[in-house]
């Protein structure tokens, strides 16, 4: 699958694009606080659903949507499995046993079990990660880097950091494009042309790793060219600059921000009272 091509086909609905990026950032922060606040798997799963809501206003090519869903499931499955198998806390009743305890050459082995507590812990950790991933990607896919930078600067994040962050975001599709081009060049020179070629996973992994060095070199070259271009256009992170178009929050956005901040305050008060 050509990821750079897929990224270019992602189309957020215009209303989502127009939402003030400060509100979007506040939304991501609220999801993150929720991840810290909630402990039960059910609540974290609900939080993931809430975090995924803005993604329904973004049109993906179906293959990209399927790949994204697969990635999310893979994260959850792998974390649950690894924690279920290797959880090491004292209270860990096994959910089921894969290999029973046995003795071999005079030594006792405890066997291989799948622990309920481990699975629950893994589910919690992975759902936290997924909730942040969903919220973060909805913002990244529906906000132009320029508006995001304006929002970060207005939120008092230092200009150099804001610019670096948004420039890195912008370079993702370019890096994916370059990677695809490097892979094509590699295939052409090895004589493996065309769709549907088969390769052993280990060989494929080694080939992909081999492309990291030129990818890094090209990224550095592009970063240097971009630095030159922004300097030629008078960019100096230490100097004040204006933003066009200026960010203006609409009434409903202000209300939404107030609600989110209210939620934070309520959560903080509740947790202090509880402790």
């Amino acid at each position, binding site marked *: 699958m050509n990821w750079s091509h897929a990224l270019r086909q992602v189309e957020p609905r215009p209303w989502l694009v127009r939402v003030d990026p400060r509100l979007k950032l506040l939304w991501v922060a609220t999801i993150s606080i929720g991840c810290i606040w909630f402990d039960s798997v059910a609540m974290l799963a609900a939080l993931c659903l809430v975090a995924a809501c803005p993604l329904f206003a973004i049109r993906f090519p179906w293959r990209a949507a399927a790949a994204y869903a697969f990635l999310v499931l893979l994260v959850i499955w792998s974390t649950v499995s690894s924690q279920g198998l290797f959880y090491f806390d004292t209270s860990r009743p096994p959910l089921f046993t894969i290999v029973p305890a046995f003795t071999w050459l005079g030594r006792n082995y405890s066997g291989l079990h799948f622990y309920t507590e481990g699975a629950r812990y893994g589910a919690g950790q992975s759902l936290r990660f997924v909730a942040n991933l969903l919220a973060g990607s909805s913002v990244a896919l529906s906000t132009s*880097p320029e508006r995001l930078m304006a929002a970060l600067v207005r939120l008092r994040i230092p200009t150099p950091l804001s610019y670096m962050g948004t420039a890195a975001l*912008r370079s993702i599709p370019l890096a994916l494009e370059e990677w695809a081009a490097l892979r094509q060049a590699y295939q052409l*020179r090895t004589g493996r042309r065309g769709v549907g070629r088969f390769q052993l996973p280990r060989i494929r992994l080694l080939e992909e790793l081999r492309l990291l060095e030129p990818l890094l*070199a090209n990224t550095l070259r592009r970063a240097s060219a971009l630095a030159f271009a922004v300097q030629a256009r008078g960019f100096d992170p230490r100097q004040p*600059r204006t933003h*066009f178009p200026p960010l203006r929050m609409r009434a409903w956005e202000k209300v939404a921000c107030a609600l989110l901040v209210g939620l934070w305050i309520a959560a903080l008060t509740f947790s202090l009272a509880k402790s």
Partner: protein
Amino acid sequence: MPATIECRRLRCSFPTGDAPALNDVTFSLPPGSVTLLIGQSGAGKSTLLHALAGLLADNVQSLRQGEIDIASHDPQRLPAARRAALVGLVQQSPDTQICTTTVESEVAFGLENLAIESSEIDRRIDEALRLVGLQELRQRYVTQLSGGQRQRLVLAAVLAMRPDILLLDEPLSQLDPGAAAQFLAAIDNLPEGGPTIVVAEHRTVAWRERADQLLVLKEGRLTANLPRDDYAAWDAELWQLRAQDSSVRSKQTAPGASLVEVDRLTFTFDRRRSAVLNDVSFRAHAGERIALLGANGSGKSTLLAILAGLHEPQSGTLKFLGAAAVGLVRQNPDTQLFCRTVRDELAFAPRHAGCSRDEIGERVRDAAERFELTRLLARSPLLLSQGERLRVAVAATFTMRASILLLDEPTTGQDPRHEAQLMHTLTDAVATGGPPQTLIFSTHDLQVARLYSDRVIVLDEGRIIADSAPEPAIEAFEACLRGMVARERGP
């Protein structure tokens, strides 16, 4: 306000270079003038432009001596915003200069850096986009623009800052003739009292009528400073390498057996949109050097990618006859080099083809000699100059000994000497029986098509509109371009 440029005994050197990049350069350019700066690759043209823009010290460790005086300022000593308001720079590749994602935000970027009020930014964006003919595309994403439109966008972004000096570093080198004409029209549109312009360019013809003065750089020294009247002599010197075309043509051979047959080929990236290639049919024979001409987006690169097996056509047939192997070199060498050394790069294809150690060594030696890479064999390809990197990419494909070699814009960004060297090597190989036996290359440079091909295929919106000997096909292409430019300008 256009400003005078005074440059006195300018000398620039870099820690990595043996000789100074600029040495004792002195000249004076009157306000409002247009100056053409010529010289071979490495002569110091870009260094001079970067020095005039005050951008040398910011990016590379360099030692600059001498004086530059632009409107009583040395740009290097000015804060970034004031410097950018004084001197604007447009470089060769639009892709390395675009700082944002949309047309509007790109023009606004520089104005934001000048801390201009939002209402004034809005007005200036309109003004600058109208000047370059992009006002209809204000809300578009930059990725939706053609190469020519992107270069005009960079020009608009610089002009919006109303600089006193406008520096153009090979702005036409990556544009097809139609896009170049539109860029030049934008320059011609500049109002009376516009900036003083200095343009470095290999393609001097386009600027001959526009420039008032000619500066010639050779190995960092200013060897001539001439008024408009003396152009002919300097043109002749610059293009003398290209004049070797008679020797290329003398090796022309009659077409041999058919190697590839393309029949009614149609291709689209997205079924909801129109076809990128439509009903394309042709045959390529051994001994042929075929140039593909067409405006940006006409389907040249897609056709080459299909021939290389990177895309499956939706309909039509593509038949390789005999044991035809195909090699493809794309325009950007940086996405084609992935080995530690140039030697590994050249040995990569034969090693994967299962050649013996002796055979690999022989192929590497042969390619290194042909493309003048012998002294670079132990170096990392990622650390070479752009021209050298392209030569490595071509040589690395050359060692495949493919019978059909496909090149996508091989001469873009190359100076005439390197361009001639590269194309002579390849066309000579075809003329002497190969490999490669057939060379198919896309280009937007009509001179390259004239000199290095014996057959030209012209594509327009995915269809072949001419397939013949170079001259008649080029005439058909020029007529097609005139139509395109007229359509864009409107009734």
